[in-house]
């Protein structure tokens, strides 16, 4: 479904991605893990055609219309209400007028529908951004750190929603530096370090392979063992 082959990306003299190759199957929940500055957002930008790579190839097997995005910047219209923000996109997609309200309800924002975005808390903004990403029921969903900076309760709500979408057949590509989140949600993870993928596969299998199964699989330990770098 999603594929990246030998991608190289430089910003000026800095080589951010030296050689990145991976593939995501249809209906998978794929997690791209790596510390801040590893190049996760850069990979999403290349996949979604917002950025050109210097070499290599990438593809996603859907049209832009079938793709949902939650990026590191939310791009919401600050003076418009939650509902008005989603209505703009419902108009663009030409989908039923009930969808914006449904999407708001699925992220628990139905009571805030009339509130201006500029008056929302960070977590609410993030949930609204997620609602916009799933508004048109996309086949592929890109989520760039969907739970970063959220309280555990809100994060759990978003995990449940991701699980739900996955059960309904969506392919999900998420980035995180939260290893626990990755183990809980993902069928397939890839660990990014120094511009390339140092390990990938089923999170539990990876942990077993590296003897890092404690009480719960400990991806964090795998990462430190492989890279010598602490994620926190």
């Amino acid at each position: 479904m999603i594929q990246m082959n030998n991608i190289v990306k430089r910003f000026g003299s800095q080589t951010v991605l030296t050689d990145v190759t991976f593939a995501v199957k249809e209906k998978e929940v794929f997690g791209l893990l790596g510390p801040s500055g590893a190049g996760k957002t850069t990979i999403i930008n290349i996949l979604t055609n917002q950025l050109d790579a210097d070499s290599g190839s990438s593809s996603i097997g859907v049209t832009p219309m079938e793709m949902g995005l939650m990026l590191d910047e939310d791009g919401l219209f600050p003076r418009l209400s939650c509902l008005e923000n989603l209505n703009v996109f419902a108009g663009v997609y030409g989908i039923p007028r009930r969808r914006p309200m449904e999407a708001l309800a699925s992220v628990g924002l139905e009571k805030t529908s009339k509130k201006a975005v500029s008056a929302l808390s960070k977590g609410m903004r993030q949930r609204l951004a997620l609602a916009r990403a799933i508004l048109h029921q996309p086949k592929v969903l890109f989520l760039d750190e969907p739970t970063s900076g959220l309280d555990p309760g809100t994060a759990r709500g978003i995990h449940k929603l991701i699980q739900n979408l996955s059960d309904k057949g969506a392919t999900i590509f998420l980035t995180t530096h939260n290893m626990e989140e990755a183990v809980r949600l993902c069928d397939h993870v890839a660990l990014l370090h120094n511009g390339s993928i140092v390990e990938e596969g089923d999170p539990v299998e990876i942990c077993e392979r590296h003897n890092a199964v404690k009480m719960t699989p400990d991806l964090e330990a795998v990462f430190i063992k492989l890279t010598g770098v602490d994620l926190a």
Partner: protein
Amino acid sequence: MRSVKAIFIKQLLDIIKNRMVLIQFVIFPVVALVFTELVAKPSEEMADSMFVTMFACIYAGMTVLATTAGIIAEDRERRSLRFLIMAGVKPYQYLLGIGGVMLTASLIVTVVFGLMGGFGGADLLKFVAALMLGAVASVLLGATIGILSKNQQAAGAMAMPLGMILGFTPMLAMFNDTVKKVFGIFYTMQVDMLVNDFAAGFLKPALVILANVTVLLVMFVAVYTKKGLRS
């Protein structure tokens, strides 16, 4: 088409809620009213509507230009435009939606100006037509600036001086013939001529404005093709 409509509605809602922009639409009609009521005309030969036409020209030259540039720059700066484009909105559809709101607002404002100036019938029509031609040129120039600027601040830094020059030169030209000659090629000067003298021919100034619109359109398309609205 549905994308243009969605952008149009978005921008309409946004303007209604954006006090900074709303004030810009209202301020010049209000100032014109105050001047007309309270300030003596510089000379008796001048028409009663002189302040109305003066501020209407400043509106069409400066406000429309700066507001259009500011809106586009803000959408880019906040990355809102990126989400629209990723959702399948073509950049030209975005610009049509934004431009559509600017021209609709301008139609209302210029009709208000016209009525304030006491124009009726064919004169009102000419007055509004001249200013709307000017507004079209300003929207194109504003959109070009919006595309060229990374953020709102940069857009303001470019749009404000340009808007001042375009908006205020007709006023300066009243006192200085050289200004009148030199800036005669710019659309704001021609709009000013049109709204100040309905008896004079409409065709020649209108053609100069259309030439301005054509040049600005070419410039806009060139900048748009080169820089686009993607990043």
